[in-house]
């Protein structure tokens, strides 16, 4: 009989991208040394474009000098995947979990992230599907509603998924999203007629779908985000 699995969840509100990277680095290190259990960060970013390890900046369609004019930052990261946009009203989950303790490789992990988002979309009557080969992510028809980009180091995950609740989709006009040229980006707002509750409720639903897909026995909702947001620069 396997031992019960606990997920600790931090709901952090809007967090600057670089700050979220520092928080994740610290948590990955703590997870590797077994100081913390599997941990999930739930948050949003201010308008931010990010690139993956392959630095596919040819998929940014405006000069970098224009980014401040549209109120956005650009960051290069070590995650997998191509260019993407993060912004208000897009729900982000960054799981910092041990894949070795569940015997998962990258493929199983990503497929389960996709299933979490598909299950979540179905709560609003939206029939989403996993991407075809080379189109990792979650789609409604030919329109992308959820993106994935992760990093796995010594079996511990960071970065994660982004699900469009109701972001300003115009920001996606300035990139070739995920390097896929001929497909649209969409959002929960666009795909459902259902009344959307407060975003806090929506985030909690997405978290619950994640916890269910990854078979956690216990979810611990951490109450004091300042504890984790107070990451010192030298910490």
């Amino acid at each position: 009989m396997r031992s019960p699995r606990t997920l600790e969840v931090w709901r952090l509100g809007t967090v600057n991208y670089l700050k979220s990277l520092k928080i994740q680095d610290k948590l990955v290190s703590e997870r590797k040394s077994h100081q913390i259990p599997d941990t999930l960060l739930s948050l949003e970013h201010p308008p931010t474009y990010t690139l993956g390890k392959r630095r596919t900046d040819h998929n940014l369609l405006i000069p970098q000098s224009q980014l401040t004019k549209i109120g956005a930052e650009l960051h290069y990261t070590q995650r997998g995947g191509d260019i993407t946009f993060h912004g208000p009203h897009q729900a982000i989950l960054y799981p910092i979990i041990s894949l070795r303790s569940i015997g998962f490789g990258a493929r199983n992990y990503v497929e389960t992230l996709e299933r979490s988002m598909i299950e979540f979309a179905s709560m609003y009557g939206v029939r989403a599907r996993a991407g075809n080969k080379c189109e990792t992510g979650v789609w409604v028809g030919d329109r992308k509603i959820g993106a994935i980009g992760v990093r796995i180091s010594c079996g511990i995950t960071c970065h994660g998924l982004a699900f469009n609740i109701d972001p300003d989709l115009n920001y996606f006009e300035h990139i070739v999203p995920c390097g896929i040229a001929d497909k649209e980006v969409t959002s929960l707002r666009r795909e459902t007629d259902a009344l959307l509750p407060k975003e806090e409720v929506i985030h909690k639903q997405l978290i619950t779908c994640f916890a269910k897909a990854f078979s956690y026995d216990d979810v611990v909702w951490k109450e004091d985000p300042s504890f984790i947001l107070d990451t010192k620069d030298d910490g």
Partner: protein
Amino acid sequence: MALRLLWASRVASHLRISVAQRGFASAVLKDLKYADSHEWVKIEGTKATFGITDHAQDHLGDVVYVELPDVGLTVSQGKSFGAVESVKATSDINSPVSGTVVEVNKELTESPGLVNSSPYDQGWIVKVELSDAGEAEKLMDSDNYSKFCEEEDAKH
């Protein structure tokens, strides 16, 4: 299943090593050593060649990018030296031995999929000059690695 054993036998015969019979999917080659982070290593005197195992490539999905180390880099057993990307995930690869990189498989830049189709042969990643031949003792042989994979796969 039969096709994979046939493939493994051909690879093994090319590398002049023998195949371990396994009850399930991934191929494991005898006479190689294995790390618990799923890298294999072939040691020949003071030199070693390594890559990732069939189990690893199967669990990664289609590899689209391999980040190769520079020749001359010092690598340490158990420490990350590069990464592969598959299914929007970058996964660190750890060195199974310590030493200095003397050659990297440049074919992987144009054809990263060799890691999937030929993980023990054309998909080799790095050759090193060993700094501590004794470290190989810490690695698993094929039987232990097979058991290790079975235990890992039983977790889900």
